[in-house]
């Protein structure tokens, strides 16, 4: 589904990704771990097409298409979803309105009929259950005045409604208490599907107790320095990031 080949990317003059190669197949869950500053979030943002990063080399192929040649909204319409590390607030726009606008844009791009607010409510009702939320949240402005945990849950709700083919969760676990973590992870697990793939970007192994990955990659200094099965996450937890950094010769 996703083929990343020797991907290099910079922010300003600083090269952050220094040749990432990664293949993610449909049905798989990959965890990308690593110390702060390793380039984990940059990788997530570059896949989504954030304009602050310049791709300086390599390729990304998504479902046979050149992902790097697509606008961020085209990527979203083709099924790429990024759960943001810092979800953005949009004052005065209700959560329901925003989510329906997104839902309909994606449907429209895929030749499907748009849903009116009433029909959309039915879709929403079912998905709200996934994140254990009542309908009240939908009339609040997008992420405005939301707690950190609520913002992350809102990302998972959006993911559930938009039903992406490739979901990237960028540090979705950071700042979550154990209950919120369980809800967020539960939401992700319920969306697991043979035709979907998920990339979980995280600093801690904790989330992986709930979302069990098929593959674990360790990113350090802008490169993947180690890949393995789910047991790699546990080993990291026990031995710390210095272990892989030392092994890979990254300062």
């Amino acid at each position: 589904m996703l083929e990343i080949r020797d991907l290099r990317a910079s922010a300003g003059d600083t090269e952050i990704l220094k040749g990432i190669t990664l293949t993610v197949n449909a049905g798989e869950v990959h965890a990308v771990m690593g110390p702060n500053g390793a380039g984990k979030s940059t990788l997530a943002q570059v896949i989504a097409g954030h304009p602050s990063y310049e791709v300086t080399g390599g390729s990304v192929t998504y479902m046979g298409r050149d992902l790097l040649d697509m606008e961020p909204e085209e990527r979203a319409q083709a099924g790429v979803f990024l759960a943001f590390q810092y979800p953005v607030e949009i004052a005065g726009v209700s959560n329901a309105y925003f989510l329906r606008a997104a839902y309909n844009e994606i449907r429209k791009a895929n030749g499907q009929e748009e849903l009116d607010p009433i029909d959309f409510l039915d879709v929403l009702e079912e998905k709200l259950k996934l994140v254990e939320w009542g309908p009240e949240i939908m009339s609040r402005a997008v992420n405005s005045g939301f707690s950190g945990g609520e913002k992350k849950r809102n990302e998972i709700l959006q993911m559930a409604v938009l039903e992406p083919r490739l979901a990237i969760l960028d540090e979705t676990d950071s700042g979550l208490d154990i209950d919120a973590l369980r809800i967020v992870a539960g939401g992700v697990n319920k969306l697991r599907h043979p035709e979907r793939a998920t990339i979980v970007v995280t600093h801690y192994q904790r989330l992986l107790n709930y979302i069990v990955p098929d593959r674990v990659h360790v990113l350090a200094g802008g490169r993947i320095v180690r890949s393995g099965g789910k047991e790699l996450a546990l080993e990291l937890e026990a031995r710390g990031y210095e272990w892989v950094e030392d092994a890979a010769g990254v300062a």
Partner: protein
Amino acid sequence: MTTSMDAFVNKEYKYGFVTDIESDVAPKGLNEDIVRLISAKKGEPAWLLDWRLKAYRGWLKMTEPHWPNVHYEPIDYQAIRYYSAPKTAKPLGSLDEVDPKLLETYQKLGIPLTEQKLLAGVAVDAIFDSVSVGTTYKAKLAEQGIIFCSFGEAVQEHPDLVRTYLGSVVPTSDNFFAALNSAVFSDGSFVFIPKGVKCPMELSTYFRINSADTGQFERTLIVAEEGASVSYLEGCTAPKRDTNQLHAAVVELVALDNATIKYSTVQNWYAGDERGVGGIYNFVTKRGKAARNAKISWTQVETGSAITWKYPSVILQGDNSVGEFYSVAVVNGKQQADTGTKMIHIGKNTRSTIVSKGISAGEGQNSYRGLVKVLPKADGARNYTQCDSMLIGNRCGAHTFPYIDVQNPSASLEHEASTSKIGEDQIFYCKQRGLNTENAISLIVNGFCKEVFKELPMEFAVEAQKLLGISLEGSVG
């Protein structure tokens, strides 16, 4: 910013066409003879001519104000034409007699005037250059004693009402542009809602400038007697021309005891091109006077004009009276706006609310200027002011000039202000959810303006949202 945002292209101003119609015009320039000519053209009584002449003589002694935060070349008042009327217009005739070319013009503007196609639930007075060309639903409104007609017609048919209230809120000596308007005003709308009557439909005036080199000086007077209520809306457009045109209107609102007047404006005068050539100078005086328990509410969406200079205000004279000001002002390209309100608290327990949303894009400069004044006898006066600015791009400016003058210790005032920049991150968030840049900006800006839009009558709120989208196209770069 990024190329995806740069890719935005400016949409044409779609109301920029000119109607080819023969006009009866006054020679250029201003002197007492022109004032007399205008008065004579309109067949006015002597008292009104005297009133105009007094205003004109006062104006001669005044100087153009230069305190607003706007910049423009000096206006040559002798190069302006002060009267222009389509030759075929019959000011007092029925709509059936209106020149088809004029009907067609309003049709193109989305304002059907022919009886079969009237806007449902909205009565319209259509002003073309200096005169009213027709008013819809007049007879229906008259059944309840409501008068809705052109100003010229009101002078002829309801002279006592006009004489009682004209200049009672904005005196001829009020300011330079109000004095000029008083001397040369040509037409406008007149509304009278008798005691206890709730006006059953929205009243609306549509202003259209057509002739070149012509100033538009309309005068609107709305009187709501005791316990009456009315909601009124004005819209404005003008052709694209490469010279600046002056629009100096005066609006007076009189709300007697327990009356309510809601006045909404969607202003979309031609703004000039992207280099700042042409466009309307919108220098307007709007003020209402609220008696006991009365309420006056101004809502404005200002997207057009090269320069906007207006401060719709409320004199809260009666005890417990309420004043409101809800404003969205958008500047793009080279537009400049200096707008806000004045809330003058005179009566006890008077309350006012100010919500101002300024959006600056392109090289636009947007200033909020507001005065909250509490006089010594206004015990328990309260004001809440919220003043938010949004910047799009990095070549525009937002400025805030709040003035507070409190002379009564029991008054309570709140002022909140914010400035935000529409961020790459906000836009990227929307794009990542499948929205394109245009829709993302429209969504964010409409959210920003929501508190003001919800004050607009339903059908106009939709128009205002669309207008905002068009005004901001090409704004991000």
